């Protein structure tokens, strides 16, 4: 660090683009890698969707490329389906959305927005990426190992996860990935606390920075229990300890040779103690992005900046007290459920407050409908569907019926796909000029936007009906059960919508790479924004700001009466 501040010696290609310690390069490394993982996770789902829509028919084009034990005669096997499902969930959550939301956007934008020259620990930042990538590759490589990839769902409930093949590699890569996230989280916290520019008080930080800050606290506190839990599960598999296995198990007619004395529910508690806060890790940073874009394109301050910040903090605290709402019918004490029912309803209060503030922020604005803004606006109603459908799942009584049905799958995909991912894509359009000094093409952006939004509803909307009809999730062949037959048509609709969604990503990918070199050049502050990331050149040089900026005011001083321009940057003295 100290070294970097003295004269800029020439960095070699590897130092600059591969093992870089610059938060911006690391951010872009995270961006590309996590978008690729999202594509992989999506491709896995593409295969599964074929089986769901047309159970037992050979997968077109690709079916015969798979070894015969995975897809005999091109028809996916039950084991392969379960592997794809488990890996889809794991890749999307831990290798796709979290690294994109935190590793990519957090890394690139947070130091700029608080006026810092880099992260507090640049080398640790590099290490975090270089732990994430091997962890992810290890996870993917499990498809090639004997027995194939993990087959027990992304939740990996024992005893199934302990007797199923593939799980050992899953657990090892999880331990590596968690380590990477922890390195990142500590770095973000220290950076936010210590590296703010003069004048950048906490209450002058943009909402996006607050979101990253709360997210990092969640990661830091929630991941260690899962790391420990994973190590215990690893021991159950490798050394035949029985932390999660009761005695007297009989598996496929044979007594299981383990000592017993363990408890399968212990894993569920530890897993969800992480995985519920994890949901907010998936959601808060995208919400922060939406807030930035909305403030910028309404040309007025956000409504209820402090309410939003306090809501995020409240969500952060409460998210550690709701985990067992995923376990209402797991066999845990029925009266304990009442406690988690109440905490779940409490956490919905700050969540609604956040959404209310976003909607009220539109009031009085002068709304520009550019491409990033369209994504930010679409986030609001689509995320709301996700949030509202959470209500009957959080209520004990109605969850008896809806738990583990497609209703759940529909619910959280509205949250995470048409919510988080839509917002994250919006972020790409918004910050692209920052990264490359050029702008992404608007026409292609519009095609990508409308295509994605409509097809997403076509995928996840039907799932809500299927769930109400009683269709369970994780079914290799839904038509094996009578009550699923009337909703099978919806599976076909969802499958074709998913393939269309894939097609509509092509303009996005093309637009991204094409605009990197050939996009329209943009000025330093193309959106006429107020926050600090726009007060330095695009792309910013090593060290970001020519001299340490001083911050004079809050983040969203738009349309201040009596000024010539309608935006007043945080760094403008007057």
């Amino acid at each position: 660090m100290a070294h970097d501040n003295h004269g800029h010696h020439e960095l070699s290609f590897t130092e600059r683009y591969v093992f870089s310690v610059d938060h911006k390069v690391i951010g872009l490394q995270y961006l590309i890698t996590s978008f690729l993982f999202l594509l992989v996770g999506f491709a896995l789902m593409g295969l599964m969707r074929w089986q769901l829509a047309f159970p037992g028919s050979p997968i077109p084009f690709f079916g015969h490329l798979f070894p015969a034990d995975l897809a005999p005669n091109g028809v996916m096997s039950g084991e392969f389906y379960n592997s794809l499902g488990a890996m889809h969930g794991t890749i999307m959550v831990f290798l796709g959305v979290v690294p994109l939301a935190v590793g990519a956007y957090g890394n690139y934008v947070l130091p700029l927005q608080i006026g810092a020259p880099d992260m507090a620990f640049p080398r640790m930042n590099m290490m975090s990426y270089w732990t994430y990538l091997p962890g992810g590759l290890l996870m993917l490589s499990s498809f090639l190992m004997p027995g194939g990839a993990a087959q027990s769902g992304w939740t990996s409930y024992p005893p199934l996860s302990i007797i199923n093949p593939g799980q050992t590699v899953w657990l090892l890569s999880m331990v590596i990935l968690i380590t990477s996230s922890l390195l990142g989280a500590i770095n973000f916290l220290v950076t936010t606390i210590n590296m703010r520019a003069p004048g950048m008080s906490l209450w002058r930080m943009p909402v996006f920075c607050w979101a990253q800050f709360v997210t990092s606290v969640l990661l830091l506190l929630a991941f260690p229990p899962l790391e420990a839990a994973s190590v215990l599960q690893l021991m159950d598999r490798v050394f035949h300890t029985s932390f999660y296995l009761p005695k007297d198990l009989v598996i496929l007619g044979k007594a299981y040779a383990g000592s017993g004395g363990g408890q399968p529910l212990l894993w569920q508690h530890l897993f969800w103690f992480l995985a519920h806060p994890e949901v907010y890790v998936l959601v808060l940073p995208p919400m922060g992005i939406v807030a930035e874009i909305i403030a910028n394109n309404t040309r007025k301050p956000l409504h209820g900046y402090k309410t939003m910040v306090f809501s995020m903090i409240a969500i952060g605290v409460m998210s550690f007290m709701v985990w067992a709402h995923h376990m209402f019918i797991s066999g845990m004490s029925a009266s304990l459920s009442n406690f988690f029912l109440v905490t779940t309803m409490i956490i919905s209060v700050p969540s609604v407050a956040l959404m209310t503030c976003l909607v009220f922020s539109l009031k009085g604005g002068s709304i520009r409908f550019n491409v990033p803004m369209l994504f930010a606006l679409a986030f609001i109603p689509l995320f709301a569907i996700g949030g509202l459908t959470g209500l009957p799942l959080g209520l004990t009584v109605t969850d008896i019926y809806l738990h583990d049905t497609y209703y759940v799958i529909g619910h959280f995909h509205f949250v995470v796909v048409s919510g988080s991912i839509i917002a994250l894509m919006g972020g790409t359009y918004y910050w692209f000029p920052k990264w490359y000094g050029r702008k992404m093409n608007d026409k292609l952006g519009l095609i990508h936007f409308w295509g994605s939004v409509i097809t997403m509803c076509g995928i996840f909307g039907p799932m809500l009906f299927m769930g109400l009809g009683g269709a369970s999730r994780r079914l290799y062949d839904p038509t094996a059960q009578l009550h699923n037959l009337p909703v099978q048509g919806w599976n076909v609709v969802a499958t074709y919508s998913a393939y269309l969604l894939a097609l509509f990503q092509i303009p996005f990918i093309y637009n991204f790479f094409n605009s990197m070199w050939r996009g329209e050049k943009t000025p330093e502050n193309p959106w006429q924004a107020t926050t600090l990331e726009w007060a330095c050149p695009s792309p910013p040089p090593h060290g970001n700001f020519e001299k340490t900026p001083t911050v004079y005011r809050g983040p969203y001083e738009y349309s201040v009466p009596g000024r010539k321009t309608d935006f007043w940057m945080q760094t403008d003295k007057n």
Partner: protein
Amino acid sequence: MGKYGWTLPVAASSYAGKIDFGIWLIHAAMLGIFVLWGAFFIYLLVKFRARPGHNAVREDHDDTPAHISVPDSISKFPFAQMLYKNKGELKSLIPDMVIMTFEVALIVFYAIPVWSSIKSSVPDTKDPVRVEVVAEQFGWSVHYAGPDGKLGPRKMELTHFSNPIGLDLAHPDSADDVVMGNEMRLPVDKTVLIDLLSKDVIHSFFIPEFRLKQDAVPGLSIPMWVTPNKTGKYEITCAQLCGFAHSLMRGDVFVMTQAEYDAWYQSRLATKPASAQPTNPAEAF
């Protein structure tokens, strides 16, 4: 089909109606909230769209804390003062409060009482049907206690292909017991007390028409109950991923009149061989 469709299947147990009530009530509320907010959202987008001659207006300056003078009546109460000074921001919490009130009402008057009646207590019944359901990869064994109301004991060592739940056939309590694979027959309008167990991994016992779902956890015996109130044929499915054939793990439930049920039970007992060979639910695989 009739029984099944795009939304909830036919309701065939005494508490199904209560659960459906909640599901429909909440969906009505959700729809209402979504439509109202949606309309407001679209209105805002149209009214405040950027256009020549239209400028953004910051929210009323007088509403910011520094510009609000506190009435004398609350000058002694710092907390009330703080609230009053922030009334501009707090106003936006009104929709939240409305939703919260709805949620509190749901919890107090619906969720907690109904949940307790379904999951934490059993209705008073004299001579209920007593059953034990034992899950395994990939089937269900339904073990009836018979007229004596006592389930014969099970021993892991006795587990055998022909005796999937390891029932101790020598024990007197087992004498009138019947074990069925992937099939459950129940008399209508009579409460069934079920103990749910699993031999291997976690499964979930789900009968959509009864709105009954409960995970079966190895090592635990989980009590549950249901009172079927419509005769007919329904479906048992497994709702928790339990392995490669999870989707094939299903069974049938036949709800019949008491007389039909008694006749069926006697016929099962009569055909029960001396060494009792219960049907193995995993036979299909």
